[in-house]
């Protein structure tokens, strides 16, 4: 099965065929935009959004003396960027957040709906999109780097910083003092760093299992 599914992207090269051109410039522009994601891309976006939604339903694993139950959610956010890259990774996180805001109980604690934007953790939720985008942008460069593992970890950490900055801004916007917001935030840092280590390990294995996953063919 694997070799055939891997051969899927081949149409990019072979399918060019006789190419009747779209009649006007505007339809051409639209066609280009639409074809950015093919069916496999759509499927990956949807399934990673599902992975994010499912990650909150997985019972947290207790770590550390504080007994903070960590969920796998931030791990999956990093993974979206590391595995899917900028466009698809951001789309996956965006789709997840959109459906959560619309009312599916897929935010941590099974919260749902626009309420989340009013809650103090709104900054983190919004930060997920930007975090995944940053990780995705850097990951495309990191996989080609000589120090691939370190570069990918750096990308994941950069994304984590973005998420935490958004989170802290969100807390202060809701009326919390900056020191208190930072204090409330750093509790989650050790767990998130650990999760990023794992995210990078998973991403490296995935890149081995599916070599053309992140590096898409040029057309």
């Amino acid at each position, binding site marked *: 099965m694997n*070799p*055939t599914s*891997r*051969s*899927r992207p081949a*149409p990019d090269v*072979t*399918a060019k*065929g006789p190419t009747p051109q779209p009649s006007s410039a505007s339809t051409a522009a639209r066609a280009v935009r639409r074809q950015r994601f093919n069916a496999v891309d759509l499927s990956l976006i949807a399934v990673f959004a599902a992975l994010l939604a499912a990650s909150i339903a997985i019972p947290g694993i207790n770590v550390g003396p504080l007994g903070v139950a960590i969920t796998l959610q931030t791990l999956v956010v990093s993974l979206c960027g590391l595995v899917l890259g900028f466009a698809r990774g951001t789309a996956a996180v965006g789709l997840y957040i959109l459906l959560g805001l619309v009312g599916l109980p897929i935010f941590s604690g099974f919260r749902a709906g626009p309420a989340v934007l009013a809650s103090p953790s709104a900054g983190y939720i919004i930060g997920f999109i930007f975090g995944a985008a940053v990780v995705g942008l850097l990951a495309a460069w990191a996989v080609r780097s000589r120090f691939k593992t370190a570069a990918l970890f750096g990308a994941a950490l950069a994304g984590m910083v973005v998420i935490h900055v958004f989170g802290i801004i969100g807390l202060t916007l809701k009326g919390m003092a900056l020191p208190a917001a930072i204090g409330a935030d750093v509790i989650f840092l050790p767990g998130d760093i650990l999760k990023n280590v794992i995210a990078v390990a998973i991403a490296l294995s995935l890149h081995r299992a599916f*070599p053309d996953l992140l590096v898409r063919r040029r057309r």
Partner: protein
Amino acid sequence: MSASARQSIVLSAAGVDIVPADAAAAGPKTILKPLTLELAEQRIAVIGANGSGKSTLLRLLNGLVLPSTGSVRVNGLDTAADGAAVRRTVGFVFTDPLSQLVMPTPVEDVELSLRRLKLPKKERRARALDILAGYRLAHLAGNSIYELSGGERQMVALATVLAVEPSILVLDEPSTLLDLRNTRLLRERLASLPQQVVMSTHDLDLAADCGRVLVVDDAGIAFDGPPDDAVARYRALVG
């Protein structure tokens, strides 16, 4: 479009090589050596060992995999140039119906197939229920696909593919995940179809139902002919 009209699939020197994503690795790997074949019989089976190239051969028939050399034409349409049209002609059923069924319930999945017809929502639903009823699956219409048994899932997958009335049906090891009883049901269902059927299988009984059997071995066709001889050849290859 009539399914009973004679169909023809022509492969001309169609081969599939894979260029590894890692440029440093060894050269292209041959998945299927160039083949020249005409498939016109009503029932054709493809048998052979795992990894022999059966799946790739089937995927060539509806443009899921495009040949890296040569061409594949279905009723005159080139799979590379007219992929969308070819896929409207050739329905494809996968081994695992769970990856094929996209929507949460059977009725929604059939509706998804019917989307192309651009019907109003209500009419589309009615049509989908009709189709399920036609395959005696109406009682499952609203169930979660996760609640269906393996056999039911495969029947639903078949119905969603047949909903758009393809004239050729390609099945990739349709009975691998089925028990004996469900395999028999599938066999009866396939026998009753007006479509041309091409399927790969490990079930030699299923292969024996077909007028023509291709034995695939080591990325090429090792035998092409009537089922009895083909099965004998396959056994000899294994033994």
